[in-house]
């Protein structure tokens, strides 16, 4: 993948960026995330069975659907910053300051929101489902554009191959083994849902119940599935809360970084800065431009001079 065939995503960038600019924006964001150590995730969003969509309803319908999905993506991420582009028939979106939990919540929102979408390309009603592939790098080293695109795309393809209408996680640090296809029958879910201890506990409980209640025997998998479902639901609400918290923590630590930078600068110019208050003003973006600063400095000096003169005069008068 020497150069990714990017096309700009008109609804997200309002036509502001060319594909190559977008690509370099993504690369910049990734390098920033490596430098400052914040999380990023890459999502690859595909419309299930998009090829047959074109065959059935005409080629324009494809464009229409992708446009609608873009709008949905923007709406369901509540305009939190992301960089998006089209790559072939898939939408790629890079979310800075977002971790695995946040990515799951976003993906979940997109997938469920898509089910409620309806299009009519002049003719019959079309409804579609989406699959979202997630690449969530766990170390700074993994935050490289091309591998991330590849992983997200692969996750999306796998999800679609498994029937679509879902999200699929590809966690690079485990060589793709830790993929997550959330289906209740899939016991791979277990690892994500509870720790080993809990799993053991449940096993023993079920076994002992089987001994006590003969009726119960054989129904353990049913109960098990029910419990999993409940937990999955619970997890979803927690995920949403976590996502929010993650974003706020990120925000705070970004601001802290900025503050520290400013303090550092202030310390370097020792005595030149009018005070701590101004540093916070700068952090909050309410400080004035440099030209005003020079002007203010001159004004302060003028007031000081005038007062010094006043003081001298008063003193010499007293001495008379």
């Amino acid at each position: 993948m020497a150069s990714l065939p990017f096309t700009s995503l008109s609804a997200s960038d309002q036509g502001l960026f060319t594909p190559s600019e977008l690509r370099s924006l993504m690369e910049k964001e990734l390098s920033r995330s490596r430098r400052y150590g914040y999380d990023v995730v890459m999502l690859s969003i595909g419309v299930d069975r998009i090829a047959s969509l074109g065959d059935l309803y005409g080629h324009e319908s494809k464009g229409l659907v992708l446009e609608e999905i873009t709008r949905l993506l923007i709406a369901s991420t509540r305009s939190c910053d992301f960089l998006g582009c089209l790559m072939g028939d898939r939408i790629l979106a890079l979310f800075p300051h977002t971790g695995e939990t946040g990515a799951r919540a976003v993906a979940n929102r997109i997938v469920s929101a898509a089910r409620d979408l309806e299009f009519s390309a002049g003719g019959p009603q079309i409804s579609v489902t989406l699959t979202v592939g997630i690449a969530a790098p766990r170390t700074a080293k993994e935050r490289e554009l091309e591998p991330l695109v590849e992983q997200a795309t692969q996750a999306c393809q796998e999800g679609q191959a498994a029937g679509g209408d879902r999200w699929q996680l590809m966690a690079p640090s485990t060589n793709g083994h830790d993929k997550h296809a959330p289906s209740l029958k899939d016991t791979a879910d277990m690892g994500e849902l509870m720790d080993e201890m809990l799993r053991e506990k449940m096993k023993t409980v079920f076994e002992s119940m089987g001994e006590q209640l003969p009726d119960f025997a054989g129904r353990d998998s049913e109960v098990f599935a029910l419990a999993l479902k409940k937990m999955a639901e619970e997890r979803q609400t927690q995920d949403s809360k976590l996502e929010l918290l993650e974003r706020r923590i990120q925000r705070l630590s970004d601001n802290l970084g900025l503050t520290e930078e400013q303090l550092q600068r202030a310390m370097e110019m020792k005595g030149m800065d009018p005070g701590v208050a101004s540093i916070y003003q700068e952090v909050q973006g309410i400080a004035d431009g440099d030209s005003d600063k020079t002007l203010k400095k001159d004004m302060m000096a003028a007031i000081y001079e005038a007062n010094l003169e006043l003081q001298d005069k008063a003193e010499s008068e007293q001495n008379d």
Partner: protein
Amino acid sequence: MTSSQPNELPESDDTPHFELISDEAENAEGILYVGIDLGTSRTSIAASNGVRATVPSVVGYPKDVVGQKLFGRSVLFGDEAIEKRMSLDFHRPLEKGVLKGTAGEAGNDGDVRAARDLINEIIRRARPRKDEIIYAVIGAPAEASIKSKSAILEVARESCDSVMICSEPFSVAYGQEMLEDVLVIDIGAGTVDLCRMHGTMPEDADQITLETAGDFVDDQFAAAIRESNPKAQFSKEMLKGIKQRFASVAEEMEPCNVQLPVEGKPTELDLTEELRGACRAIVPPIVDGLRKLIATFDPEFQDRLKDRVLLAGGGSQIKGLDIAIEREMHEQLGSGRVVRIEEPMYGGATGALKIAHDMPEEYWERLK
């Protein structure tokens, strides 16, 4: 894959709150910055700990030991002093915005002492911690003489660790972040101060002081009532109260229906016309003053100056005044834009506080 629609998350609070942190940082230094507006009728303070306070610029001392026992204090301020003025040695130390006397001159010692006590009181109302060092900027009337300025400095130094004086209109403009090419109209009780700011400290040529201020409106109002209702009885304080409640220059104003005794009998009077007339009387002299300051300014920047007129001071609360001045400017000067500052009573004090904040520490140190 579960299909439940995710819950909408509560919006995160987008503005980080740093006040707490910056407060702590300030307290760690142990410095309280204050801005003081020392006016004829009111003295106000704004402090870096967030406290703001205002008090009528009057000071009263019990006339004798009995009074002192009665009031339980040796000095009273503001409204309390006004209320009990009959049994007090009563002072308005800043008559016409300038300390009336300077120390040593016979007969003026009382005013100097009153000014000292007033400044001390207003700082006390800013609630400094016992261990806090106080740096104060005091806005003094633009036209105050060197002599009265150094008198203010002298008395203020007793309550502050370091103190500076700046011109009142400058602090108003500075507080609004309007540093260059601004015209400030500060309507107080005794004087209207017009001041042209252009990036440096205003000089004499940049300032005009008029006597057509709040007290003048009160006098005009009184004269008009005497004309229309010769038998109505009132005091200055009563008229001031009515004015502050109804004052307007607008065509459509709330009717000023009040009760005044007429030959001892409380009578309902409609004083709308009288009050409007009195309020309108201050517009022409103000615009005339503005014209002079504009005409003598660099022609290239005259239009910019006309567009940046700030209206401040207690007297600027007359309803519709900004529009009336603007209209008169259009007629007399071809154009004009007047902005009334948001909190006319605190414009001077908050501006002075901002200056105190922006003043480099070393300057404060050197003036100690």
